[in-house]
């Protein structure tokens, strides 16, 4: 291997670790500087002073700040994120337990967003300023500017309360809860593995509304981005050349132009997916969806600092990972970057 080839991974590694360390330091400091006493989360408001003091020492809060940070970092490096006050479990176990729910939702939403958003964007780029373009724009603007919790509540009110078409909040009906043993953590997959088709169907029904809402949101964004990328490409000379050469119009649009939009689109999709993965806090709250977002919110509201820090690290890692991944795809797909 040449020196040059070695340099690249090392550079990436250095970049990753500095970003990570910075992220840790900032979150840690925010956690310690906010005027909230984390001991209260453990002992409650009414504990006697000696109980309070004991808990404070047990949490290491009597040590100087730099020492606390040092201890925390060395624990994290050995994979110990501490214990959650709220659930009494190691934070890492909690995150592993709640994350699949978010992942399942994010994947479904992204699929919906991509399948609807890209064709819509292409159509409105091709039929620029047509009626269809205007309709798409309005739909996109709605999706992008309406608060998602409001859409969620309206969706529930309409499809669940009024029309009776879809089930209410939750990941599955309450009596199906805890029947399927988690293998992948994806309820749809797990129920299939277990052969519990009733539960599978129920889980899919529960997934439809929140996933469509999040999907609508990413569709709105994707269609706008696709449109502008496409317009740019369609104005290029090679398109004209292709048309002059008599290449079929659909091939020009879907093959030539879209092919060249693929790279920036992948970045947009990947980042959008990353955002969905960090837990769509509001959607998960409205739909009582037991994922990372709901876990993070509960922890924040209960001053459960270990859990908050743990989630921050995971979210940070996801973002770094997604960025790296899209860089990597760039390299593969763009001949110039090879």
């Amino acid at each position, binding site marked *: 291997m040449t020196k040059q080839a070695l340099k690249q991974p090392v550079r990436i590694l250095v970049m990753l670790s500095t970003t990570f360390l910075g992220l840790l330091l900032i979150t840690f400091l925010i956690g310690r500087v*906010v*005027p*909230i*006493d984390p001991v*209260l*989360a*453990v*002992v*409650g*408001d*009414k*504990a*006697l*002073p*000696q*109980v309070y003091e*004991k808990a404070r020492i047990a949490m290491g809060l009597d040590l100087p700040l730099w020492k606390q940070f040092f201890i925390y970092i060395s624990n994290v490096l050995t994979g110990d994120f501490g214990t*959650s*006050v*709220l*659930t*009494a*479990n190691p934070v890492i176990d909690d995150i592993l337990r709640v994350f699949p729910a978010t992942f399942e939702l994010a994947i479904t939403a992204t699929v919906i967003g991509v399948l609807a958003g890209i064709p819509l964007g292409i159509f409105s780029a091709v039929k620029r300023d047509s009626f269809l373009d205007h309709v798409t724009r309005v739909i996109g603007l709605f999706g992008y500017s309406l608060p998602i919790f409001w859409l969620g*509540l309206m969706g*529930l*009110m309409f499809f*669940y*309360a009024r029309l*009776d*078409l*879809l*089930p*209410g*909040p*939750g990941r599955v*009906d*309450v*009596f199906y*809860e*805890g029947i399927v043993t988690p293998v992948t953590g994806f309820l749809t997959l797990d129920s299939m593995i277990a052969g519990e088709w009733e539960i599978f*169907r*129920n889980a899919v*029904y529960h997934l439809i509304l929140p996933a469509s809402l999040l999907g609508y949101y990413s569709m709105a964004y994707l269609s706008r981005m696709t449109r502008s990328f496409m317009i740019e490409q369609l104005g290029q000379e090679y398109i004209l050349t292709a048309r002059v050469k008599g290449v079929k119009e659909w091939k020009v649009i879907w093959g030539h132009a879209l092919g060249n939009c693929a790279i920036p689109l992948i970045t947009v999709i990947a980042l959008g997916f990353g955002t969905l993965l960090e837990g769509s806090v509001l959607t998960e*709250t*409205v*739909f*009582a969806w*037991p994922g990372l977002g*709901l*876990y993070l919110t*509960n922890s924040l*509201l*209960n*001053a459960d600092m270990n859990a908050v820090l743990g989630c921050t690290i995971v979210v940070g890692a996801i973002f770094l990972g997604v960025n790296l991944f899209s860089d990597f795809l760039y390299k593969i797909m763009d001949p110039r970057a090879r």
Partner: protein
Amino acid sequence: MKKLFLLAFALCLSAVQTAQASPPKDTLVMAFKIDDIISLDPAEIFELSGAEYAANAYDRLIKYNVDHVSEIYPGIAQTWEISDDGLTYVFKIRKGVIFASGNTLSADDVVFSLRRVILLDKSPAFILARFGFTPDNVEKTITKVDDYTVKIVVDKAYAPTFLLYCLTSTAGSVVDKKEVMAHEQDGDLGYGWLRTGYAGSGPYTLRTWKASEIMMLDANKHYWGDAPKLKRIIIRHITESSSQRMLLEKGDIDMARNLTADDLKSLENNTEITLQKRAKGKVYYLGLNQKNQYLKIPEVRQALKYLIDYKGMEQTILNGQATLHQAFLPKGFPGALEETPFSLDIEKAKTLLKKAGLGNGFSVTMDTRNFEPLTSMALSIQSTFAKAGIKLEIIPGDGKQTLTKYRARRHDIYIGDWGPDYMDPHTNANAFAHNPDNADDAKSRSLAWRNAWDIPEMTQKADAALLERDTARRARMYLDLQREHQQCSPFVIMFQKIEVVAEKANVNHFILGPNFDSNFYQYITK
């Protein structure tokens, strides 16, 4: 093609119709905010929903009548005797009680449970520690006489009901010694396991618990008392009031526990849903920090008590979720004072302020939790204060944040609520009218301390009431104490909370007590 579409549509519809399922007949599903639970160990449980869980999953030594709190009756302790000097209590333990594990309950379990509260020294330990029990002396003070007799020796001749009421609280729950000790690790008395485990003998046993998600309870087949009516109780954590309401209206749940005033109002005319109301022990109050140069003036404290629109708030913002109450002991407690001498009277307040030399008013801040109905109450108070020239700045904050500031005595005014820890009047007297040491580094930190209210004389009166062994005379002492407190204290006590439960019309007999540790599922039918 058209046919195919129709067929697909029909298929979808038929699938949808069966997608809806209401709870089975023998199961109750409720939506309830349970994210306050940090432990399922009765020696540590101190939160509202945790206390409710313990009340249904564990048995306590002594119980009280939820409608007449002064009536105490036997739980696991069948009878008890108190020595003439008031120091020794002997409890006879009920025979034939079997834990969910199948083990038989005996004096060993009772002694173990009570000692364990002191040895673990978690938040609720003070409820028992107050009687002089320490980790060093429990071997001698809490002892087994024989298999069904327990002897407890306290350090002072307290009012006899004081210990009994304290034993009605969650800290008085009996845990299964064998089961708990089987899970002991490094001398932790099974704490690491019981935090999320179960070792009780109550009407319901724990089946599943996922923090901030779900709790499932099953009827205890071995239960010694009246058999629980429903086979299973499922508690689902749902934060949003509107989501809870929607689920209830659709019939997907049987009961909603955390509806806001708005949502409750919209359910009032729904014939399929009934609202059950019960006054709770919690009071809403303002704490006026005596370190503040204005608030420490007696006339100013008095004036502020006349600047609250009690009636208006009760009828609008609180709308059935609280009732007017102006003394520190809530209605339903022995010795509760029901007089309400204060009402909105701006002229009177102005005169008082003039007397204090503050005829032109002053500026002051109020720390307010971002939580209804507190935020709406704060706005009302701001507008009535303004009528007498007092400029109130509301500082909103999250619960733990305002509490941190309050506990450090850095607030001007704090608006909050306070619930009793056990059913003896001393619980609130201790909070509101007891402050043995007003120094910043004091050991005992009551609400009176938090507001820097230095009251050596009143502290003595509260202590005297605690040691009065004549029940009627003791109640009178608390009445006098509250009358004095009402007039001179830096506490503007305004309301007593009412818990409202919205349930399907076919759900009956959910027993709501004056505290969350006295809400019982055992008799629920549907």
